[in-house]
């Protein structure tokens, strides 16, 4: 009886291990394949059976990529600039707003808060046409600020940091600071901000990745190649039949690399950040 039970558990385990390994393979393979193809020459790419290992043509592919798209590194720069600006401004305005909602009592606080939460349910597609029109009125079409200014004080970020500040910063500290003559903004800047670094890191990661991968917004407002961010730049490669897949894959690989490197070193924190984020989005 006991032996039988043990056997049952182990077949169960085998099935479980089979499932998790298969799914991990399916998940990792396309990424591996992208990096592999980025190193292959056209004859190697168009071959049956496929060449499954890295080859030596990365430099050639990269040169072809740069020839087809001289603005590639400029796009990389644009992406970095937009993501950094989005992250810094969002962290500032959201921590300020979250601080106010967490640490002060003021008239209409609850109503204002609920209103803010309610704005989160507005779907992206509803906003996309007005977003375009607004940007053209402001003269922000083809300007990078069109990509980060509208979201600088996101409701999601304020909500996230409000929760964090409420749990991490005791109110007594603020009273003590006030007695010492600290102004309200200085309390925020000198006392609260240093105390909420983990919360800021969480939100920062979510915002940075979101901005890095933003496609629809960039597609709508960016028009000239010099202003393209990476997603739009990569997309523009697609229609050019003269560019081989190895070159396109090397571009895709380079665009993923920064996020991949950060992810390898901080996977646990990043996953935690997204879970902290999603639990609130609903």
């Amino acid at each position, binding site marked *: 009886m006991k032996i039988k039970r043990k056997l049952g558990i182990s077949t169960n385990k085998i099935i479980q291990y089979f*499932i998790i390994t298969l799914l991990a393979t399916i998940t990792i393979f396309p990424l591996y*394949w992208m990096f592999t193809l980025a190193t292959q020459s056209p004859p190697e790419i168009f071959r049956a059976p496929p060449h499954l290992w890295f080859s030596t043509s990365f430099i050639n592919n990269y040169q072809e990529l740069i020839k087809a798209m001289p603005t590639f590194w400029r796009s990389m720069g644009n992406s970095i600039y937009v993501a950094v600006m989005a992250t810094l401004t969002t962290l500032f305005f959201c921590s300020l707003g979250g601080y*106010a909602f967490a640490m002060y009592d003021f008239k209409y606080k609850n109503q204002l808060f609920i209103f803010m939460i309610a704005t989160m349910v507005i779907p*992206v597609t509803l906003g996309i046409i007005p977003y375009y029109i607004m940007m053209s009125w402001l003269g922000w079409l083809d300007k990078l600020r069109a990509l980060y200014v509208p979201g600088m004080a996101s409701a999601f970020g304020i909500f996230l940091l409000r929760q964090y500040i409420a749990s991490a910063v005791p109110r007594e500290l603020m009273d003590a600071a006030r007695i010492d003559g600290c102004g309200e903004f200085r309390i925020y800047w000198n006392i609260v901000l240093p105390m909420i670094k983990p919360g800021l890191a969480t939100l920062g990661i979510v915002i940075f990745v979101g901005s890095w991968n933003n496609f629809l917004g960039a597609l709508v407002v960016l028009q000239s190649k010099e202003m393209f961010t990476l997603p739009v730049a990569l997309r523009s490669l697609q229609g050019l039949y003269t560019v081989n897949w190895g070159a396109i894959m090397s571009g895709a690989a380079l665009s*993923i690399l920064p996020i991949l490197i950060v992810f390898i070193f901080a996977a646990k924190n990043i996953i935690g950040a997204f879970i902290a984020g999603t639990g609130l989005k609903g």
Partner: protein
Amino acid sequence: MNLSASSLLAGKGKRGIWQKWNNWRNKNQLRYAPYLFISPFYILFLIFGLFPILFSLFLSFHSWRAVGGLSTMEWVGLKNFKFLLSDPWFWGSLWNTFILLIISGLPQHIIALPLAFILNSRLPRQLKQFLSASYFFPYITSTVAIALIFSTIFGLRYGILNQLLEFLADSSFTSWAFGWLDNSLPINWLGKAVYIKPAIAIVVVWHWFGWNTILYLSGLQVISDDLYEAARVDGATSWHEFWYISLPLLKPIIFFAVTMTIIGNMQLFDEPFILTGGTGGVGRSGMTVAIYLYRTAFNWTQMGVAAAMSWLLFLIIIIFTLINYAVLRKGVLERRGE
């Protein structure tokens, strides 16, 4: 309380008005500071949220080609909505979106739930972390890059997927399971209307199942071990544990995750847009409402029609979310009533 240093400092030879302002500020800042701190959100929302959205509602009753400036706007009443409701392209794209919601939404959850359960069982910690990280990574990868990778994977003659399927169909070990595919190989994933939706669904499932898995895993981790322990004492198998403990207790998270899937997939844009080269694909069979909306607004500059479409889509999303709420919430409440 406000014998503050700044008012003393201000007295040092600064102008009287500055001191007055400082006094006023010190006395009142506690009252006004919070409003000032939260104001950026409301100001930005007015400019980039509320006003434009109201304008788009206004626009949906007009005919307007963005190129002509505001003066070319012309009131057409409900004509845009009437047009859309009788437009086969709109209904077609709605149908595509709905089919994609099902075939790319359901598998995500059917994979994610048991997978999260397995991850939550006694696996070595390192392995667990490695697996969670691998499943999660696609979620933070740019959709454009993903869609480009899959464009090569779906290649007709030399795409790795077709080569794999051919291998499986021919190999004597696996032909019993894959032999039936032999006649349709190689599959023209992106070039034939019938295959475009499955191809898009494969990419979407690949992109999102890990996110759902991690979400469910975080839900499972708060379920007390005692429950499983007690069940095991009573002779429950893993299957029983999954079906009778994990699943019912996860219901609120399932509701949340399914809601997110509905809202996201009803607006599916990036994956089909790249995979079909921005057109919607052969026979428009990969054209979702979001792509049709984009093309109406930016390829054909029919801003009024596009605005009307965005409002119709919004309504449809609300209806679907409410249906989901009715179906899943009911279960949760009943369970509590027991």
